[in-house]
C-alpha cells in the first residue's frame, strides 16, 4: 500500500468513526429530549382535562342542588308525601319538567322516595321504578354527587342529591345528565397529532373497566378478556388515583405510547392522555436521515481533503525514490533537489551529497584498480611459467587417472554383468557397490546406497527364521577371521519381506596386506533346491522301483540254486550263478547311483558322533574277511597309538574304508598283500591303504576319480565294479574338507591316501542320507 493511500485511509477511518459517534450520541439525546417534551406536554394536557372535567361535574352538582333546594318544590313534595294523590303527583311532574327544561343537559329528572322508588318524574315510565340499590340513591340521601352507572353495557351519568325539609331528608332528586358535553371535553384533540387522544374509564359495580366515551381507535382495542397485564397499563394506573408519566408503555391496542394519567375525583373517573411513540419520534427520524446525508457529503469532502494532504506529504518522497532509482542505475550526475524544509528535504539534500561522495570514491577506486591490474599482469607472467610446469605434472596424473578409471570401469562392467548378486562393503559394513543383479534379486529397485549399511538394505535369516545380527553375518566373520567363506547357505530377505535361500560366498578385499572391505556374492538357490528335491524324490522312487524286480530275480534264482524247485545239474547251476551274480551287480549299481545322486547335490547330511576311527575300520575289515581269505591275501593293519575318538559320521567313514579296502582286495591278485594304516599327522588323521595289486595305468590316472570310469586292467580282472566307488569317496572327502590322493605303478601296486581334518567331520544339515 502506498503511503499516500495509507494516510488517506487513516484520515477517513478516523473521521468516519467520529461522525458515527456524534450521530449516535445525538440520536440518543434527541430521543430523550423529545420523549421528555412529549411526556410533559401530555401531563399538562391530562391535568387540564381532569380539572376541566372536575369543574364540569361540580357545575352539574350545583345545578341539581338548585332544583332540590327550591322551596316551592320542597313544599309540594312535603304535601304529596303526607297524602299522595294523582293530582299532587301531576303538579310535581310539571314542576320537575320546568326544572329539566331550565337545564339543557338534563335528560330526565325524577324524585325518589326513601323507599327507593321514584314517585315523580319528567318521564311517566320511570314512576314506581326501584333504584334503592344504586349509589346515586344511597349516597344521594346524604349529599350531592355524580355517578356513572353501567346498565349491562349501556351507561349513564347521574347527578343526585337529598331533598331536605325541616332538617330531614324526605326524598332524593335524581337527574340523568347528557354525555354530549363530557364527550366534547374528552374528545377534544386539538394539537394532538394523528395518534394523540384522551381516554377515560370508570369501574362499574362488578369492578370492570368501562369506557364511557368512545376511544379514537375503538376498532383496534383488544377486548378486556384477552388483555395481558401490560396492556392498557396507563388507564389501570389512572383508576388507582395516581398521576403518573409513562415514557414507554402499552395502551389498549398494545401499541407503544407515551402517556400521562390523572384521576377525576368527583366522578371517580380515570383519565389518560397519550400519544404513539412512533409519532412523537417521527420528527427525530427525519432529523437522523438529514444527519446521515450530511455525514456522507462531509465524508466525501473529507476524502478529497485528506487525499490532497497526503499527496503533498508523499510527493517529495516519490521524487526522492525516483532519484534514488536513477542514481542506483548508474547516473551519478542526477540531483534529486527536493526543496522543502522538512525531513524529506533534508533527506534529499543528504542523498545528493552522498551521490557526490560516491562519484568521488569511485574515481579513486578506478585509479587503484588500474594500478593493481598492472601488478597482476606482471605476476601473471610469472605464474604462466609455473603453470606450465604444473600442467606437465597434471598431464602425468591424468594419464594415471585414466588408467585407473579404465580399470575401474572394467571392474564395474564385470561386476555389473555378473548374474549373481554382488555387494562390496567397507570394513564397517558401509555399502560401496551393489550390482544390478543384487538389486533385482533383493527387489530393491533403484535404491540410493550412499551412506547405507548392508544391514540397512539386506536382512539375513537362518533356516529356522531367526535373524542374523550384524556380528554373525558372513561378511563380519570374514573380516574378523580374514578367511573367505564359500557357498554357505543363508536366507536373505527381499525388500517385500519374502525370503529366499542363497548360496553365499564372501571374500576379503586387501589393500597393502590389510583388509579394507569384503565382497559378498550370493545366488538365489531356491530353484536349485526345488529341482534338487524333485530329483531326490525321483531317485528314491526310481531306486525302489528298480530294486523290486531285482529282488524278485534274486530270490527266485536263490531258490532255484537251492534246489527248491528240484535238483539242478552243474551247467544249470553255473548259468543260474551268472544270473545271480549279474543281478547282485545291478543291485550294487543301483545303490551306488543313488548315493552318487545324493552326494552330487552336496546337500546330504553329515551327522558326526564321537567315534573311534579304528573301530569303524575293524568292522569293515571283518566284513571283507571272506574275500581276503578266498584270495589268500596277506592283510596287515597299523593304528598309531595316539589316535583318539573324534567326531565322525559312521556311515560316511564306513563308506571310505569299504571302498578303499574292497578295491585293494578286489584288484590284488591271489597271495598278494594289503595294508591299512591309520595315524595322526599335522593335518589331522591320515588313512593309507597299500596294495600289491594291478596298479593304475599311468595314462589313465587322471581319470581315476571320474564318475563311472574304470581302468582297462580293472575291467579285465574284475567285471563287477561300478566305476563309482572312488568317485563317491572323492565327493565325501571333499565335503568333509579332507583330501584324497594316490601313488600307483602298473603291476606293482597302488597306495591311496585319505586325509581327515584334525577336528573330524563337521555337522552339516541336509535332507539326504546315504545308503
Amino acid at each position: 500500500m502506498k503511503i499516500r493511500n495509507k494516510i488517506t485511509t487513516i484520515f477517513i477511518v478516523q473521521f468516519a468513526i467520529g461522525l458515527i459517534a456524534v450521530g449516535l450520541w445525538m440520536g440518543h439525546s434527541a430521543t430523550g429530549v423529545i420523549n421528555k417534551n412529549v411526556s410533559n406536554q401530555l401531563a399538562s394536557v391530562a391535568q387540564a382535562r381532569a380539572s376541566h372535567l372536575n369543574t364540569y361535574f361540580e357545575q352539574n352538582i350545583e345545578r341539581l342542588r338548585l332544583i332540590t333546594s327550591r322551596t316551592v318544590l320542597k313544599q309540594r313534595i312535603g304535601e304529596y308525601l303526607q297524602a299522595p294523590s294523582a293530582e299532587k303527583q301531576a303538579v310535581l311532574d310539571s314542576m320537575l319538567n320546568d326544572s329539566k327544561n331550565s337545564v339543557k343537559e338534563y335528560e330526565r329528572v325524577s324524585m325518589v322516595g326513601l323507599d327507593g322508588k321514584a314517585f315523580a318524574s319528567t318521564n311517566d315510565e320511570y314512576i314506581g321504578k326501584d333504584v334503592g340499590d344504586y349509589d346515586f340513591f344511597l349516597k344521594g340521601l346524604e349529599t350531592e354527587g355524580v355517578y356513572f352507572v353501567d346498565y349491562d353495557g349501556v351507561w349513564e351519568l347521574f347527578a343526585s342529591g337529598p331533598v331536605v325539609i325541616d332538617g330531614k331528608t324526605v326524598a332524593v332528586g335524581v337527574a340523568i345528565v347528557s354525555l354530549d358535553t363530557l364527550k366534547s371535553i374528552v374528545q377534544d384533540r386539538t394539537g394532538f397529532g394523528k395518534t394523540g387522544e384522551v381516554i377515560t374509564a370508570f369501574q362499574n359495580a362488578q369492578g370492570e373497566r368501562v369506557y364511557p366515551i368512545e376511544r379514537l381507535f375503538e376498532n383496534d382495542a383488544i377486548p378486556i378478556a384477552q388483555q395481558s397485564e401490560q396492556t392498557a397499563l396507563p388507564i389501570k394506573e389512572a383508576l388507582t388515583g395516581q398521576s403518573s408519566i409513562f415514557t414507554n408503555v402499552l395502551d389498549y391496542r398494545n401499541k407503544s405510547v407515551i402517556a400521562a394519567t390523572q384521576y377525576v375525583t368527583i366522578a371517580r373517573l380515570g383519565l389518560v392522555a397519550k400519544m404513539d411513540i412512533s409519532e412523537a419520534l417521527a420528527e427525530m427520524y427525519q432529523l437522523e436521515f438529514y444527519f446521515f446525508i450530511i455525514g456522507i457529503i462531509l465524508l466525501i469532502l473529507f476524502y478529497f481533503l485528506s487525499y490532497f494532504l497526503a499527496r503533498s506529504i508523499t510527493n517529495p518522497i516519490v521524487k526522492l525514490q525516483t532519484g534514488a532509482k536513477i542514481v542506483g542505475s548508474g547516473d551519478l550526475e542526477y540531483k534529486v533537489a527536493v526543496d522543502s524544509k522538512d525531513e524529506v528535504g533534508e533527506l534529499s539534500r543528504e542523498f545528493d551529497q552522498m551521490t557526490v561522495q560516491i562519484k568521488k570514491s569511485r574515481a579513486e577506486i578506478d585509479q587503484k584498480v588500474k594500478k593493481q591490474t598492472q601488478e597482476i599482469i606482471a605476476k601473471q607472467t610469472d605464474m604462466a611459467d609455473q603453470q606450465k610446469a604444473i600442467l606437465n605434472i597434471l598431464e602425468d596424473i591424468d594419464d594415471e587417472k585414466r588408467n585407473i578409471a579404465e580399470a575401474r570401469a572394467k571392474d564395474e562392467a564385470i561386476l555389473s554383468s555378473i548374474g549373481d548378486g554382488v555387494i562390496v562393503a567397507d570394513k564397517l559394513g558401509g555399502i560401496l557397490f551393489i550390482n544390478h543383479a543384487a538389486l533385482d534379486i533383493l527387489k530393491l529397485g533403484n535404491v540410493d546406497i550412499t551412506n547405507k549399511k548392508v544391514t540397512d538394505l539386506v536382512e539375513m535369516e537362518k533356516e529356522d527364521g531367526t535373524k542374523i545380527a550384524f556380528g554373525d553375518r558372513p561378511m563380519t566373520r570374514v573380516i574378523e577371521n580374514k578367511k573367505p567363506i564359500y557357498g554357505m547357505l543363508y536366507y536373505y530377505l527381499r525388500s517385500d519381506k519374502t525370503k529366499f535361500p542363497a548360496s553365499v560366498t564372501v571374500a576379503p578385499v586387501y589393500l597393502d596386506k590389510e583388509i579394507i572391505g569384503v565382497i559378498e556374492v550370493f545366488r538365489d538357490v531356491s530353484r536349485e533346491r526345488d529341482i534338487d528335491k524333485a530329483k531326490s524324490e525321483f531317485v528314491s522312487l526310481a531306486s525302489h522301483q528298480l530294486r523290486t524286480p531285482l529282488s524278485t530275480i534274486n530270490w527266485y534264482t536263490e531258490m532255484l540254486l537251492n534246489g527248491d524247485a528240484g535238483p539242478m545239474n552243474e551247467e544249470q547251476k553255473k548259468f543260474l550263478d551268472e544270473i545271480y551274480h549279474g543281478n547282485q551287480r545291478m543291485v550294487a549299481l543301483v545303490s551306488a547311483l543313488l548315493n552318487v545322486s545324493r552326494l552330487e547335490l552336496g546337500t546330504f547330511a553329515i551327522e558326526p558322533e564321537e567315534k573311534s576311527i579304528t573301530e569303524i575300520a575293524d568292522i569293515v575289515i571283518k566284513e571283507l574277511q571272506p574275500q581276503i581269505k578266498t584270495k589268500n591275501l596277506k592283510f596287515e593293519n597299523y593304528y598309531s597309538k595316539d589316535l583318539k575318538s573324534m567326531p565322525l559320521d559312521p556311515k560316511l567313514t564306513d563308506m571310505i574304508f569299504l571302498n578303499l579296502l574292497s578295491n585293494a582286495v578286489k584288484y590284488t591278485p591271489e597271495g598278494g598283500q594289503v595294508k591299512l594304516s591309520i595315524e595322526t599327522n599335522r593335518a589331522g588323521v591320515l588313512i593309507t591303504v597299500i596294495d600289491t595289486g594291478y596298479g593304475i595305468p599311468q595314462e589313465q590316472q587322471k581319470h581315476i576319480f571320474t564318475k563311472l570310469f574304470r581302468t582297462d586292467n580293472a575291467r579285465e580282472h574284475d567285471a563287477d565294479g561300478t566305476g563309482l566307488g572312488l568317485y563317491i569317496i572323492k565327493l565325501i572327502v571333499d565335503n568333509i574338507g579332507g583330501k584324497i590322493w594316490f601313488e600307483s605303478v602298473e603291476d606293482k601296486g597302488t597306495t591311496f591316501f585319505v586325509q581327515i581334518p584334525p577336528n573330524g567331520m563337521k555337522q552339516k544339515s541336509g535332507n539326504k542320507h546315504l545308503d
Partner: protein
Amino acid sequence: MISTLDKKVILVVEDERALSDAIKAKLTKTGFDVVTARAVTQALQYLVEGVAIDAIWLDHYLLGKENGLDLIAQVKEDGSKWKNVPIFVVSNTVSPEKVQSYLRLGANKYYTKSNFKLEEIINDICATLKGICHKD
C-alpha cells in the same frame, strides 16, 4: 516230520505277488505255515479273526493308503494282544529315517530286500522263534 500242531505261522505282508509267492514257497519249505496279505487291513483281519500268528514278515509299501509303519504301529501299540509278535521288516525303502522309525516302533530287524537272500532272513526268523527249520 514236524507235526502240523507244532508248526509256526508266519504272516507275510507283501504287495508284490511274485515276491509274496517266493517268500511263501521258501517259508513253507522251511517248515512254516504261511498266510499272506497285500494290504494293512487284510493283515489286521487275520489278527482280529484270531489266527495265531507267530511272526510277521512286513514290507513297507503296500496296497492301499496305509503302509508298513501303520501296521506295526497298531500291532505294537500299548495294550495290543500281539505286542510280542516279532516283526521282520523286509523292504527296498532304505532311508535311515524309515529304518529308525521301524526299529523304534518295535521291529526285530530291518532288511534291504535286494541285499539279502531269503535264506538269511528265514534263518533269523527261525532263530528268533526257536523253531525247527529244515536245513538243505
